[in-house]
């Protein structure tokens, strides 16, 4: 009888404790995932910042020279690190695609798009250049 009461007491003591530990572990998991998400967002913000600057630089160069090849050459390639500096393909964090579309009245448009290496879209900028009729 005493043993049964002692077992019930221990169970009554252990169940809230186990629930508390379980709750604590769940909270830790949620907080850890929030931290991981915030670190990821920080990296994405840095990439977006670099992508905006890269596209803007590309647009400025394109509107000056009117050639995509020259634009890529002046930028130092199409692969860049997370700070927007030219990098080789293995160390790159993002890449820039550029394509031209003809417009009317002597205008030509360049569409500059920045992507992460995973193919996630970061930023798009359309630059217009007047090349004469």
């Amino acid at each position, binding site marked *: 009888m005493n043993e049964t009461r002692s077992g019930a007491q221990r169970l009554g003591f252990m169940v809230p*404790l186990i629930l508390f*530990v379980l709750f*604590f572990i769940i909270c*830790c998991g949620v*907080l*850890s995932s929030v*931290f991981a998400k*915030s*670190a990821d967002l*920080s990296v994405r*913000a*840095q990439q977006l*910042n*670099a992508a905006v*600057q890269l596209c*803007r*630089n590309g647009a*400025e*160069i394109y*509107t*000056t*020279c009117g050639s995509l090849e020259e634009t890529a050459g*002046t930028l130092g390639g199409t692969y860049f690190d997370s*700070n*927007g*500096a030219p990098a080789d393909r293995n160390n790159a964090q993002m890449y820039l695609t550029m394509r031209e579309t003809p417009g009317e009245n002597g205008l030509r448009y360049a569409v500059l798009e920045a992507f992460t290496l995973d193919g996630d879209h970061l930023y798009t900028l359309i630059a217009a250049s007047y090349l004469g009729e």
Partner: protein
Amino acid sequence: MAQKTSLMLLVLYALLIIGLMVLVVGGAHLYSVALDARNLHADQRSALSFVQTQVTSCRGAVSVVEKDGCTILRLSESGYETRIYLYENTLRTQLARNGASPDLARGEVICDMDEFTLTWVSPRLLKVATDFGTAYIRCGGGGANE
């Protein structure tokens, strides 16, 4: 038996406290990194955008001048000129009469900076290299070194 339970509880509480401390330290570190990155991005955006906007909006002559070992970007417009330069590790700007002798110390501070290099890639394209990154700026009216 009671001693064993007490020891188990002690270990459990120690684990919980260590877990909490790891979370708090990790969170604080992450917050500090995120804050530093945000400040860096803000400086980067403001510095490069400021120079780009000033040059793009300038309808007069754009020139790069060397004065007392300091590189000055000079944007002249109808009697006045805006000067942008690096002085004592700060990017500064100054509005003055055309041709007036520059008093570099009196410029308005934009942000802290260690590098500010200006290069003409072509007669109408200016390259601005800073420690925050590089910006290319089209100068519609062209520009040159003086």
